[in-house]
């Protein structure tokens, strides 16, 4: 075992709660349990123990579980204490643990970092776990589960084996074809195989990205000042997030409200109304931001005149303020809503959910994040060049680049910086 410190942290949610779980990982984890509980329970079995301070003062009645390394989640000796979830109990147990020499509070992401370093998970699984821990909605949780389960890693492995085969054919052509006894291959069959692989990877690339799932889809409300955007937003999210007044231009900056409809993460964004002739400097800046929000929108709710909204593939025409006889009329394409009466709101929600489901990765597939997308795009670019080349040397070089990109996806070509960035995302104790 290494000389690393033994780390501990509260691994469940913030107290107070019914129970609180403290995890301890490292060479001294079992020693710590023995110190507090007076004995070491049998591995992998929940045991009721009484935790005491060194002075003998009772801390709590708790369940203790020990998992000997390297077969544990972190690859080290790992222990869990399931405490009664009061703040005082948790604080007292943590303080007692901190007093043991060699034990310290874990840094953010450190349990996962150790799991990675000890070969318990690969980089893609680590990223999947990070997403799982951050997953707030059911859809996010299911996709993260797929990634962590290694579905993506298994796919990369399959591709890697195929690329290795193609590389071997190419190298045989380069190193042995002039020396007899290697049947000449033609570059055509390699090109064909590369095209097949290209198609398979493109299919994955064409699925929506994981960031959307993690951060939520942007649903932007747009329209001229005083068209009722803020009122509609407040109705949709069920609280007063935006200031509403009859004075046009009240909303000068964008307002973002994260919500979930049917387990789908959404961020509603209210914008400053679009007016062309404003001279108010602050309002002008607000309008520029509005245009940026439109560009960034996944779904755009348009409350202005029909067909006058910005071009957008997911624009929903809204006929708002339907309770007001003087309201802006639209064709039957539009969804008619009244924030005042609540009429049409459930139709609008259903429409948003239907469109969102198309934009998000399906829950039974894994989703790829920006880093993974980046390397897959490199793979695809190199594969395309293989298909175009007749120079074996260049084919070999592109296939080598493909292998490197695939290796990077599983973390082979990692750098310290990348690891730090990745593990910095974890919250303490997971």
């Amino acid at each position, binding site marked *: 075992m*290494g000389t690393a410190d033994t780390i501990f942290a509260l691994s469940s949610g913030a107290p107070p709660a019914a129970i609180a779980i403290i995890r301890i990982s490292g060479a001294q984890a079992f020693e710590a349990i023995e110190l507090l509980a007076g004995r070491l329970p049998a591995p992998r079995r929940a045991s009721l123990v009484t935790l005491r301070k060194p002075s003998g003062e009772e801390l709590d009645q708790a369940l203790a579980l020990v998992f000997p390394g390297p077969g544990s989640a972190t690859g080290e000796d790992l222990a869990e204490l399931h405490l009664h979830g009061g703040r005082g109990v948790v604080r007292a147990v943590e303080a007692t643990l901190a007093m043991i020499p060699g034990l310290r509070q874990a840094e953010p992401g450190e349990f996962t970092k150790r799991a990675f370093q000890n070969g318990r998970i690969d980089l893609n699984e680590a990223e999947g776990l990070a997403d799982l821990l951050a997953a707030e909605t059911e859809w996010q949780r299911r996709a993260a589960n797929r990634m962590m389960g290694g579905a993506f890693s298994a796919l990369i492995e399959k591709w890697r084996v195929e690329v290795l085969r193609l590389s071997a054919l190419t190298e045989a052509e380069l190193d042995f074809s*002039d020396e007899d006894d290697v049947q000449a291959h033609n570059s055509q069959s390699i090109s064909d195989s590369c095209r097949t692989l290209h198609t398979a990877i493109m299919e994955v690339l064409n699925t929506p990205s994981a960031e959307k799932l993690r951060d939520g889809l942007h649903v932007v409300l747009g329209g001229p000042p005083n068209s009722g955007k803020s009122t509609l937003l407040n109705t949709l999210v069920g609280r007063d997030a935006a200031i509403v007044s009859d004075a046009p231009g009240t909303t000068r900056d964008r307002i973002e409200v994260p919500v979930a409809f049917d387990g789908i993460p959404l961020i509603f964004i209210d914008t400053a109304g679009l007016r062309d002739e404003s001279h108010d400097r602050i309002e002008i800046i607000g309008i520029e931001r509005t245009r940026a929000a439109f560009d960034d929108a996944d779904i755009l709710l348009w409350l202005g005149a029909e067909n006058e909204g910005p071009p957008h593939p997911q624009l929903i025409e809204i006929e708002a303020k339907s309770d007001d006889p003087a309201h802006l009329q639209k064709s039957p394409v539009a969804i008619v809503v009244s924030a005042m009466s609540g009429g049409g709101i459930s139709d609008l929600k259903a429409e948003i959910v239907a469109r969102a489901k198309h934009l998000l990765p399906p829950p039974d597939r894994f989703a790829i994040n920006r880093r993974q997308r980046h390397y897959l795009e490199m793979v695809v670019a190199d594969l395309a060049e293989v298909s175009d080349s007749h120079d074996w*040397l260049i084919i070999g070089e592109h296939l*080598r*680049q493909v292998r490197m990109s695939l290796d990077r996806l*599983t*973390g082979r070509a990692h750098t310290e910086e990348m*690891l730090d960035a990745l593990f910095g995302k974890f919250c303490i104790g997971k």
Partner: protein
Amino acid sequence: MGARVALVSFDRATIGAMSCNPAIGGLGKGHLVREVDAFDGLIARAADDAAIHYRMLNASKGTAVQGPRIQADRRLFKASIQRQLAGHDKLTIVEGEAAALCFAVGSGTRVSGLKLADGTRLSSSAVILATGTFLGGKLFRGEERLTGGRIGEAAATILAEQIRGAGLPMARLKTGTPPRLDGRTIDWSQLEEQPSDAGRWTMSMMHSHRALPQLFCAISRTNSQTHDIIRSGLGRSPLFGGDIAGQGPRYCPSIEDKIFRFGDRDGHQVFLEPEGLDSYLVYPNGISTSLPTDIQEAMVQSMAGLEQCKIVVPGYAVEYDHIDPRALDSSLAVRGFAGLYCAGQINGTTGYEEAAAQGLIAGLGAATRLFGMPMPAIDRSNSYLAVMVDDLILQGVTEPYRMLTARAEYRLRLRADNAPTRLTPLAIEAGCVSSERENLFKTRVERKQALEAAFQTKLTADQLLRHDIAVKPDAGRMSLSEWLRFPMITGRDLVAILYGADMEVDEDALAEVEQDSRYAPYLERQDAEIRNIAANDRIALPDELKYSDIAGLSNEMVERLEAARPETLSAASRVRGVTPAALAAILVYAKRAERSRSIAA
């Protein structure tokens, strides 16, 4: 470099003898020859002095994988080596059997010289073992067993015992050689001829033309009858009787191995290579064997053109001791011993070219250590020399190691034609290049630079079209070196545009500039990769690092890392089976050790 060197050999007259096939170069191997030449080594010049057949392998493929190869006249090759050695005034040839390494008084690990079997002691601060197949050498042919490194020569048996006794990790490898045929009994008229290349290239940069008349080789083929004969003898083969424990090379198998493993093939090519201008001996490349002599005769006579052929010397297999090269550092010094180096087959390699390259590295290692100089900065991105050393010391060997272009990840830049450009500056800096070569190299550099400057001239697609070069009219305006990225445009075309069709330029320099330009986009892309590796190369791993203390390494990884003791983090990343997670753990551990050391200091 000025070191005084003694060359110890059983028999002065056999120095320069080619043990196996009379050929130098080939794919990957030709690169090594040119690289040794770039450091002023002898092999390329000896090859040219003896060359009776030149062939550029892979001539139809990109320059980077083209392998220059020559057939040598055995007698002339040896004569050239002997002549060149005689020209070195700091070199003394000592005849005798190297029997034991001597160590400094009170030290079992600091080399102080060598003891010969006759009791003579040679004192030196470094000893390079280049034992070939002689260390514990044992010959096999059918039921026959002989002690020796080559047929008719002795083996270094006493030294083998001492080395095994010193606790070095030793193992056995096997290689083989085919029978030698009497060319006067071959019916050449039946066989397909393979003439020498028409080109004017030579192995050494120091030579501008080919000196000897060129012979042709011929090609015969094994057939189903040959295969039946071989099968009938398998029971009498030492390879299949379990007598040979050493692993032979997969890429250069004996003919019985080929039949055993690829029995479904209807035939295997056999190249008939003449052994010299005034020799009737012919080397049948492709039928290395240790079958009994009677089977060898029947096998040979079953092939087209060889029906009446007489065998002069039957083929045999040789099994010999080698050291696990993972016990060596990047200068081929044995770790834990001061002043002990190994080069050639003792390190588990095969081939003259691999041996010459290691002789160079070990010699540089010993001399730079003696003079307190740094090793020339060779690495995987600038030479096959370093690719081979790095492979050997990190991966070890499971079969005799042979160079292949596939081993070099940066082979686009490691061409046989640019070896001087890549390496001669390092060689000049290390002081191992003659003034004659240095001057020749400088001229070459100047010519190349002049061409490179000229190739920065920008021309439009129109200008090219007017000279009948088929480019797209809308391709725009580019420098000549950028135009060279189009495969159908040659350097010669562009020189004609610049200076007129009659302009004479240095063909070698032009070819090099053309190839540099051709692959420039790929080389630029590799540059970033090489910089990253260089960054990890700066993270030194201490020699005393205890891998067993690092949590998360499997026993297998610990074993491999302990055996190879990578000098840097990037070297560790190349050790087979080391996963990214393991590498991260090593990095963290090494960083922590470094931190605690710097706190302690």
